[in-house]
């Protein structure tokens, strides 16, 4: 079982345009800080986090729109040199992307058919005579009716436009499809259809997905494994079911407890303080209810077994330290901690 994507210690910094002062250079902001993750063949990796956590930055690195400041990205075992055109071409041949905004991601002067054909032309791997067949196949799969093909994006609804973006990304088979909030601009019934389509497509086209969304209900439904980002740092990675039912990092716990479902008649009315990332050490420590003196340093990864990794000092030295800091009981960890996932009872 090989990994399709291997990202190691990826850091992306942006430099602010404004200098701090005449004598100090512009401050740089780490949109991604030391992120490592892998995506397996035929796997859906879900990446979640709130606005500004760096989710889209990672997506853009994977299609070569941003260059890493440091760290490495390997696709199909090939390390990508972002300064090498051939490597970027290789990247784009294997990785497709669907953006959130269906309005700005389509060229308004081209017809739908031209938009999709462009992707075929760019790929150079499909003979021209097969174009119509491919377009037919993919538009059917994503649910774009034939009568839309001669129209221009301006005349289409948001849902239709997003499905065209999807068709464009998938018309040439890709090893990895990066989906950056692909459904958050869609109507709910359309979102459901797109999610169904994505699942079906994956098995038919032998593609892996990096699915990025802030909607935990969606990410649970689509992904095998889940990564949680907090201001540029991954705080927890693991099997979706495990992370959802037994979140370990205090941030993940809080995030998952805020998810609205149809069943839970519950609403947070208490004050939640604004999430301000700490400038150093664990970024969550300012708001973290369990923060203690060690959190001033950068936590390393703790392997909880079964591919479940958490970046938190609470789990760094076994159960002794936890009892000292008085962590809430749900966060208790240990081998005997086998809670029944609520989903299995309902």
């Amino acid at each position, binding site marked *: 079982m090989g990994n399709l994507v291997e990202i190691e210690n990826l850091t992306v910094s942006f430099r602010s345009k404004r200098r701090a002062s005449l004598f100090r250079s512009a401050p740089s902001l780490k949109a991604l800080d030391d992120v490592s993750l892998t995506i397996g063949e035929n796997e*859906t990796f879900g990446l979640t986090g*709130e*606005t*500004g956590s760096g989710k889209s930055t990672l997506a853009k690195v994977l299609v070569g729109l941003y260059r890493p400041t440091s760290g490495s990205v390997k696709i199909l075992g090939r390390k990508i040199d972002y300064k090498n055109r051939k490597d970027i071409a290789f990247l784009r041949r294997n990785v497709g992307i669907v953006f959130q905004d269906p309005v700005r991601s389509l060229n308004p002067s081209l017809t739908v058919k031209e938009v999709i054909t462009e992707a075929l032309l760019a790929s150079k791997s499909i003979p021209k005579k097969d174009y119509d067949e491919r377009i037919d196949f993919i538009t059917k799969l994503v*649910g774009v009716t034939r009568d839309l093909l001669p129209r221009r994006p301006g005349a289409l*609804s*948001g*849902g*239709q436009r997003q499905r065209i973006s999807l068709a464009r990304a998938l018309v040439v088979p890709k090893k990895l499809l990066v989906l950056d909030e692909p459904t*958050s*601009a869609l*109507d*709910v*019934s*359309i*979102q*459901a*259809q797109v*999610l*169904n389509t994505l*699942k*079906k497509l994956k098995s038919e086209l032998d593609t892996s997905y990096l699915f990025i969304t*802030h*909607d*935990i*209900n*969606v990410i*649970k*439904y*689509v*992904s*095998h494994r889940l990564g949680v980002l907090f201001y540029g740092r991954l705080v927890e990675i693991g099997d*979706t*079911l495990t992370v*959802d039912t037994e979140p370990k990092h205090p941030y993940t716990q809080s*995030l998952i407890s*805020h*998810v*609205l*479902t*149809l069943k*839970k*008649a*519950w*609403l*947070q*009315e*208490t*004050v*939640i*303080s*604004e*999430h*301000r990332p700490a400038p150093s050490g664990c970024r969550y420590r300012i708001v973290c209810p369990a923060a203690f003196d060690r959190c001033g340093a950068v936590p390393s990864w703790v392997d909880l077994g079964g591919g479940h990794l958490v970046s938190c000092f609470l789990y760094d030295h076994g159960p002794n330290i936890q009892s000292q800091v008085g962590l809430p009981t749900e966060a208790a960890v240990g081998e005997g901690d086998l809670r029944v996932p609520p*989903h299995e009872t309902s």
Partner: protein
Amino acid sequence: MAIDDVDGTDDRQTLAQEVGGPASGVTRLAEGGRDGNLLDINDLTVDFVSVDGKVRILNGVSLNAKKGEVVGIVGESGSGKTTLGLAILGLLDSPPAEIVRGSVMFEGRNLLKLKPGEMEKIHGTGINMVFQEPLDSLNPVYTVETQIDEALKVQRKRADSTAMQVTDEESKSVIADLLRNLCIDKPEEVMERYPHELSGGMRQRVAISISTIEKPRVMISDEPTTGLDAYVQNRILGMFSAQRKSGATLLYITHDLTIASQICDRIYIMYAGRVMEAGDTASVLQNPLHPYTSTLVASVPQGFEDAPPLAVQLGEPPDLRNLPGGCKFNPRCPYATDICKREEPKLEHILSGRYAACWRVDKANGKFS
């Protein structure tokens, strides 16, 4: 049932009252404000006129809300929910909009029949609206402080025209308190900023705070949390539920059933400018009386990666320029028969407090087949 003849009275009107639930038909206030409904919309029909012809955006929508109630208007794009909100506030531009018939009764007055200038008196203290995109409702060239201060000044002026001048420091501290109540850290810092310097969630909270300053009796919020993450969404919903505790009536427009299920007492499900189903939130979601409602419920992702496909009906929100005959949902409906294609069902009473516009629903057991 005897009813004052408001514009466009027909059998829908009776329904509109009854949708209110058990309290209906008891007390009737002088004009319009029947059954203790603060807001009572009857048979509202709105066309948009364009060069291509007329498009009917709302078709006979009846809806009511009592004091302190949170009423959800749930539908997808093109269902007319935003138009409904704008029509209540008299914010529809005419042309292109044209109110064909119907009435919007608010505290005994038909808002559609007001003289020019009267509506402004209702905005603010009477009915207010929060829009989906806060950048559109905030002025980009003024700081947050200036904009909140402006609303505060209007409020003071209305409350008491002889009110004494408030010093700058006093108003600064009032604004800071207001922002602090919205869980905004370091309000003194935020006050100085311009809308574009704030995050989406913060902007939305500022916009909401401005519209709550005058303590409106009805607040219409149009998808205020769409596109925001779970935390911010929770904070904003928390703000609304605080509003409701202070006695405000809330019309909450959303496409998201999970949100509606958390804060709405009753919901109206809209499709193609019509009300398809209405009733109290929990029973509508548990036992939908309309196939469209069950599609919406099925659209909420449940379970994990190995879960079965979502049981959603294919097809997409209707094209209002080109609606099918009969029931507007029939092309997507798995239960559609001949009558569904021929004739449009009316919103009818099915079970206690529950209404649906569907030929296929069985009145005896509330199931469709």
